């Protein structure tokens, strides 16, 4: 019985490790400036985790194999432990674990401790149940005033733009997210109803959109293409279907897009661009 258990533990450990090491299923390639550093931190952590996991399981299997009850074995060792060992493994694990925690802060700090760098392109994201809306400031690069009281879906005023505000005249609103490649982007995240979460897997980036708050986050996407955007916080019935795409566009294409007049011209161009690019999975 002891040997069988040891072998099962080892096989399960081996299969688990193989599943990770083979990388048959893994992160999509990173498309963000912070992605490589984050991936490196993930690899360091997962290697530490993997070694600790395998060592503990192999050790457990070995104990079970070696110390199974057999007639030719001597009586069990009578010991209440060893203070020296306790101190040793407490200190070692504390150094490793807390070291990992401290290392993990650098990517976090670069993304969250600082405001967006100067010259970031700003886009307002307004989520609502099962739809994403993106508010671009337009030619003047200034957002027009919005107020939830102005929201009127019958006239397509989805985010409540105040049409009396001169800054609002050129503001574009669409269902797709377009960002320039290689240039920092600042998102201002809002929600009209419940909590949603902005999640683009290759961007290695996620942030909740909380009603009543305007959360500012920034990132730089550095690979042109089309990527799926999903909601990662349970927001109701069609949570699974609250999707959009993020287009990472070459600078000139992006500038041309953002200088279009709002309305049909802008929406049509967005649709064209959406069809022009392919998802990584479709290539």
């Amino acid at each position, binding site marked *: 019985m002891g040997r069988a258990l040891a072998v*099962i533990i080892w096989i399960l450990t081996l299969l688990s490790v193989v599943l990770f090491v083979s990388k048959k299923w893994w992160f999509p390639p990173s498309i963000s400036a912070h992605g490589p550093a984050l991936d490196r931190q993930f690899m360091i*952590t997962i290697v530490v985790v993997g070694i600790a996991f395998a060592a503990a399981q192999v050790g457990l299997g070995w104990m079970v194999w070696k110390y199974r009850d057999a007639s030719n074995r001597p009586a069990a060792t009578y010991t209440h432990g060893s203070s020296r060992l306790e101190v040793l493994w*407490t200190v070692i*694990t504390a150094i490793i674990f807390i070291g990992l925690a401290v290392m993990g802060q650098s990517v976090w700090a670069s993304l969250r*401790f600082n405001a967006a760098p100067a010259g970031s392109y700003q886009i307002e994201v307004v989520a609502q149940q099962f739809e994403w809306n993106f508010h671009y400031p337009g030619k003047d690069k200034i957002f027009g005033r919005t107020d939830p009281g102005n929201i009127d879906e019958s006239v397509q005023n989805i985010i409540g733009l105040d049409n009396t505000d001169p800054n609002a005249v050129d503001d574009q609103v669409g269902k797709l997210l377009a960002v320039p490649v290689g240039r920092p982007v600042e998102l201002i995240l809002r929600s009209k109803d419940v*909590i949603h979460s902005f999640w683009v897997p290759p961007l290695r980036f996620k942030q909740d959109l909380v009603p009543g708050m305007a959360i500012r986050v920034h990132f730089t996407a550095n690979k042109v293409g089309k990527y799926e955007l999903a909601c990662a916080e*349970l927001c109701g*019935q069609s949570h699974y279907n609250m999707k959009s795409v993020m287009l990472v566009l070459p600078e000139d294409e992006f500038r041309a897009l953002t200088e279009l007049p709002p309305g049909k011209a802008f929406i049509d161009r967005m649709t064209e661009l959406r069809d022009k690019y392919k998802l990584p999975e479709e290539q």
Partner: protein
Amino acid sequence: MSDGTHDAVHRHEPPKGFIRKYIFSLDHKVIGIQYITLALVAVLIGMIMSVLMRLKLSWPGTHWPILASLFPAGAPGGVMNPEFYLSLLTMHGTIMVFFVLTTAPQGGFGNYFLPIQIGADDMAFPVLNMMSFWVTGVGFVVLLAAIFFSGSASTVGPIGGWTGYAPLSALGERAGPGQGMGMNLWIISIAIFCVGSLLGALNFITTLLNMRTRGMSLMRMPLTCWAWFTTAVLALLSFPVLLGGGILLLLDRLAGTSFFIPGGLVLTGVLSGSTKAFPLHTGGSPILWQHLFWFFGHPEVYIAILPGMGATSHILATFARKPVFGYRAMVFAIFAIGLLGFFVWGHHMFISGMSPYSAMAFSILTLSIGVPSAVKTFNWLGTLWGGRIRFTTPMLFAIGFVSLFVAGGITGLVLGQTSLDLPMHDTYFVLAHFHLVMGVASIFGMFAATYFWFPKMFGRMMSERWGKIHFWITFVGVYSIFVPMHVMGIVGMPRRYSEFTQYRFLDSLHPLVVFVSIAAIVTVIAQVIFYSNLIWSLFKGKKASDNPWEATSLEWTTATPPPHDNFAGHAPTVYRGPYEYSVPGAAKDFLMQTDPEGAGAPAAH
């Protein structure tokens, strides 16, 4: 009734009537069995719900005729609709976390064995103990009522996950199906559950502090008692916070207050305050709910697993025939886990909009909680080292607990890091992590406890052969279910999706999803073996002796099953620590805690 001034042995007769004996019983043993029965019923419902969810995830378009007839509105034509799935998900989580993982380990085994292991004849406040169970039972009935009165024909309960994040949970029916009456019942059920758990915790703490028998010093208590005690302290301090949050949430829903609901919300095109149906809300904070919830929710994780840790330590020592390695370190580790558990709740909220600086502090505290967890693992390995292991069914499950605790706990090193939480938050990686460590490992601890203590509780052994078959299938099964989920999370699969067909980046995972579903179905079916073994052994099992495992703690010194007042009128006297196995020079390979000095070895500790 005298007050003990003379020397006669006072054996007390149990109450006679059926109702006083089995229903409204004041006997901690009966109450313990009641809690375990509640958990056995609840876990069955929770498991069936998880199988239904797996059917939807892996075969999203398939028509299941049986579902069409059972749930004509929730699964029209036999295909589950999204809201039906999400209500299953919410009920599964709530039932499992509250009515299984909190009831069986603490209310069940803790209630039964804590008084016996410290040599008391009952809990300190038997009436409170009875109330604690029945209040919990009422909470369960209210939760089940949400299945039938969810306020929407197509759901079987509210939609909100077990975390019930506001404002989705606060806005009522206008936020969609599953936000009506079912959500009210869900909140009320949890509030009732909080009260029941508080009564239980109050009792555990008082009993342990006040009713230890002669010689039972704190450092002579079995580790199970330390675990139950710490769990009770966690419950005592964390459930009131959830209760407070629940009251605020209910007021937001029913009384029109704005604790969690901010201003300017627009739902289905209607602005808050613009019509009578959607009253004005201003200024509430959705993040406040998350703080209150997770201040409870994180200690809750330890409430679920600490008793399993205690049972595992206890059982490993018994069947390795060795004292627990590093008893003192184990006690400190339990305490450290309990204490740190109150300062890490923010790691559930890294991307919630909370200050990034507090996120960093929470992250470092979170990873430091891994240290006492690792210390426990090392000590379990140390307990096995040099032992003479007897592979009984409880021992297999205890070893399985160690394996699963490592497998599930260690990925906390990934999730606890702020930056790595960016890709991992709310994906299947999280799901895999907490199911393994909080769910499955805890359940393995309870399986071990069931096989271990069943003979004492019912006077009959459970079938070893079927127990072992149950172990092998379940052990391989849970690894097959939850390890692949980590990889799904790495690819980016989000939690709480009723199907994945909408996203191309998830397409490649389909074979893995199907594999997990098959593994889950097989594992759930294998639990029939457990239930059958339980029922069969109750009536037909081999008669158990008073101490079938040759164990040392007080529950094995009394009759099987124990008499009404546990020790037939007189309190035992304790001379040594709880794990004196293989003491050199002793006549047998174990010394009971009650064996007087001179029974072959000096009194240890």
